[in-house]
């Protein structure tokens, strides 16, 4: 091949790529994370709420995504050491810092029907007061909901709650 031809051919290919003509702009991608709304009517629990051992309650939160929701996960763990999560805005009154003896822990994932972009959770939960032998610790807990959308974006909402014996 003539060298000059080769030279110009390459320059054209390179220049056209550089000018973005190689880029496929036709595909729209989702870069938005899903969201968890706890301000809807009847949302529970919300920040600073109290849960009681052995008393059933329903978790209600509104989940939305601009395209399609994935699944969500609920996590309850102790906050006796008063660590913080930056998603909490409100300051609740906390008990004094203490050592965990037999803290309650709960982790469970839940599915959301396919092709849903808005969903309200309806999970009934009863926190047992013992693990079968020993009583669970009362006190400050974190209640966390994590949510994904279909693309794998995830979001997290953490709340301060108290779990007490009535």
């Amino acid at each position: 091949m003539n060298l000059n031809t080769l030279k110009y051919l390459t320059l054209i290919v390179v220049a056209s790529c550089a000018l973005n003509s190689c880029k496929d702009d036709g595909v729209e991608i989702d870069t938005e994370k899903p969201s968890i709304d706890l301000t809807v009517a009847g949302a529970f629990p919300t920040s600073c709420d109290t849960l009681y051992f052995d008393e059933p309650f329903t978790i209600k939160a509104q989940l939305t995504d601009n395209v399609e929701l994935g699944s969500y996960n609920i996590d309850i763990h102790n906050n006796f050491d008063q660590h913080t999560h930056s998603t909490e805005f409100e300051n609740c009154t906390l008990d004094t810092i203490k050592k965990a003896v037999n803290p309650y822990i709960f982790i469970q994932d839940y599915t959301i029907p396919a092709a849903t972009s808005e969903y309200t959770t309806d999970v009934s939960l009863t926190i047992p007061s013992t693990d079968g032998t020993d009583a669970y610790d009362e006190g400050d807990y974190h209640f966390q909901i994590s949510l994904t959308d279909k693309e794998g974006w995830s979001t997290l909402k953490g709340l301060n709650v108290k779990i007490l014996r009535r």
Partner: protein
Amino acid sequence: MLRHLVLIFGITFVYCSAFGQTGYRFMGKIVDKKNTPLEGAWITIPAANKGVESDSNGNFGIYNLPYSTYKIEISFLGYRTLTKHVSLTENRNHVFTLEELSVWLDEVEVRRNSPEQRKKETTLNVELVDDDYLKKNLGGSLMKSLERLPGITTIEIGSGQSKPVIRGLGFNRVVVIQNNIKHEAQQWGSDHGLEIDQYGVDNVEIIKGPASLMYGSDAIGGVINMKDRSVPSKNTFGTTVDLTGKTNNDFLGTSVSLFARKNKFYITARATLLGFGDYKVPTDSVAIYSYHVPLHKNHLRNTAGKEQNLHTSFGYISDRFQSKFYISNINSTGGFFANAHGLEPRNVDHEVHDASNRDILYPYHDVNHFKVINRSSYWSGKWRMEFDLGYQRNFRQEWSQYTQHGYMPAVVSEELDFNPEIERQFQLDAYSGNAKFFYKLKNKTDLNFGINAEYKENEIGGRGFIIPSYNQLNLGSYVVAKHRRSKKSLLLTGIRYDFGRLNSKSHYDWFVSPVGDDQFEHLQRAIDIRRNFSNVTWSFGYNFNPNKWLYKFNIGKSFRMPIAKELAANGVNYHRFSYEVGNADLSPEISYQFDAGFAYGSKKFAFEATPFANYFSNYIYLDPTSNYDRLYGFGNQVFEYTESEVFRYGGEVRASYDVLKQLQFGIAGEYVYAIQLSGEKKGYTLPFSPPASGIFNVTYQKPKLKCVKKAYVTLDYRLTAAQNNIVPPEETTDGFRVFNLGLGGEAIVRNQPIDISVQVRNLLNIKYFNHTSYYRLINVPEAGRNLIINISFPFTGKIKTT
């Protein structure tokens, strides 16, 4: 130059000493600048097909020559080759003085390896750096020191660990080679650095682009090739002491090397000892996902580390044969950011952790890498043979407090056959061998045949499972032809066949989980996987360098076998709080790439552009799904290995202009664009895509400034664009501007040279995020201002020979 040397040896092969005294006698003596006779220099008269070696007094004689004017060549290891036209009209004793190159040199390739020459000899885009560059740009780890080069970025975790990324491709897509043997460690782990002592590296060649042809599977993204060229010149000895200090992480390091050579035997040794404290970031708290962590005095909690390295090499070098051994042991220990390691962001005892910034507490890793390599070569006339053999053992342990998850017992019994505080353990044994044969077919064509073989075994241990034990065999063979069409143009083409076999072993939990009513079982995490892979790859390139210009083009196919982690991962990533799952059916990655290079160089102005375009038919990557894991019962998001079609393009540009003899301006820039054309993440980019970035540089240098030789001051202004092109779970990262200052030179104190280099990185203590840092996701900014000082004392001497 190699051609000449090979030719010389070839000529010697047919050379016969005196045939009687007819014709002209060409006699003389070879000396160095101090008039010391040089033994073993080669004197050749190509036109007459004659050559001879000088004797112990530097004398030589070539007999039986017709009277004429001859072009003669005199070459000697470590000295500049002398070419002269000598008119043989009378029997006269000639004296030739050779100029010494330097104390450190390579036996055969030294003069062939100037960056300019190397770029003319290849059709791929290469970067070459020497120890001088490394010292001037010394970073926390070898890759960090190389990051200034356009097209090179790193994935970092902490201040002493980083992984190479070439044009946005890293992990198992970049091959690291040391002394011709592929460095084998746990390179699949995003948090695992390179077990390389950067003080022991004096020469790095980086191939930007696929190089499967010569280096096999894994070289799909590029190659970092480190060659230890430190062979002392004949009858010398010496030592170098390096001292390094850094203010950001209170780093203190020293490396001492020794060398000696007597005639054909040489030995070198090196010991490196370094330690550093927690590094400082310009922020007083970070948010790990949503978890708020205060930092004590800006220290990133528990990121201190230490390293102890030992090396020795010895060998025999003669005119036809050389054999060199390299033995090294690298041991490094480093802490992980304590709040960001585990199943979730953790609340650790800050009082204990913050008591000292130099202690290494849980969680930390400890790696020991032992390596033995032999490189031997034998050459004669038109051919050369090379054999490389290597054995490596990489032993890695990650320690952390025992944390129960899933159905792990809350308290572990003492009957376990492993320490429950060991989170993971890997022991890799790798055996490698290469045989290469170079043959000069006619004058214009070089042929290169090669066979690479590698067998490795990886055993796992510890309480947490992520990848299974496996063994893997790789065999490859290639032929490459280099044809010189003229002095200014060459064609390079080659073809390669690879075969690989990977057997990964099944794995069961060490603890039982409930599988039904009152039924408990050791759950199976991995099944037996047996996969065979084979592939043909090829490459074709053209290099043309008329006068001040250089053009190169290369097109090639590369491939990469899936690794054990991609096929069989099934566990928690403790840095990302994610659950990673492999896919046993993945096919080998295939990539086609077109590379070009355009360069212009005049006395004052130099310019280079190296664009590329690349297509992957199936790029393997870790895809975040919308599911949460319940396998280990900790509710982490599940990431699955998947494959998709990918198109990438980008390139680097670089230019420099000498305003004055001492004042130089330079710019360098890099850009990569990647898009997935199919699969779950169609339309998205690839994870860890480096943003566009550029460096503006001004350098002032003076050969002599009072008592300082080679004095320089250099200022880099790095401008990095924002990265908004992301894929879950990444965050967009803002652009940043950082100043780095460097200065130094060679001070002469009582005839003793002292090399000094000083750097101030992040001069203005800017808070910024690096999109490709592993700690980016947990919002840890890059290190704050850092003053780095390196002082090097070289001492050399001559060994007297009797």
